[in-house]
């Protein structure tokens, strides 16, 4: 299973970082077959909103420390 390491001024929750990367890879990368995607577009948009929210909250968390 994939593991995460965070290096630098602050240590983030590595499970969250790994989830962000997992979502990014599974819904945006990989082989695209000429098939159907069961996910509705709305779902994907929601994921990306979540992704951005996570990254920005991580940033603001650091700023407030």
């Amino acid at each position, binding site marked *: 299973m*994939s593991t995460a*390491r965070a290096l630098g001024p602050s240590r983030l929750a590595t499970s969250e970082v790994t989830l962000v990367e997992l*979502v990014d*890879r599974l819904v945006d990368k990989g*082989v695209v077959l000429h098939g159907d995607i069961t996910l509705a577009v709305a779902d994907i948009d929601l994921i990306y909103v979540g992704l951005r929210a996570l*990254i*920005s909250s991580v940033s603001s968390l650091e700023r407030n420390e």
Partner: protein
Amino acid sequence: MLYVYALVDARPGPPSAEGAGHHGAALCVVARGSVAAVCSRHERIDVAAEPDHLWRHEHVAERLMERHAVLPVRFGTTVTDEAALAAVLDEREDEFSDAFERVRGRVELAVRVLWTAPATDIEPPPGATGPGQAYLRGLIAARDAASAIAESIHAGLAAHAADARHEVSITPRLLLSSAYLVDRGDVGMFLEAVEDVSRSHPGAELLCTGPWPAHTFARPLGELR
């Protein structure tokens, strides 16, 4: 219908389909020539992009990666039946064979660099004519400096990789988002390089994850989504 998790190089012999996929369904293999697709069969399937489902898909690919060259398939991909899947595999066999060669014996490592330098460091460069212009010029200079740092970090890491993709200055805070295709035997060296970068850039926070199956390198460079 069939839910497809990954394509596997079938040349040494098709993979065995051990384990379970979504909703506990048994894994099955559809092999055509040098390409095998690992799937699960469902009357109907609806998988929301929730962590449990995402990890299920990922674990199938990671397990296959232990023994085979693997191309992960995008989450949520289904085909009507075996005939439809076989037709795609036949039509694109050359493309998939090339991709297997690219990823064989290699894993993907992901890096994100968060920039933690305070915004108050921005100083107006010489030649600014007013406070507004000075501020804007300062912002541009700071952005250029950050981009240069990101490119330098990326170049240092890419030196340890067989292939790499990167995006610089995505947001003011997210300086670099990149992926590296690394020989299995070089993962330790790559991680040491990540630590070296971290030590030499105290204002940067490096987030490194992996080893992943080669999600980012499964498709040819420049191919649209």
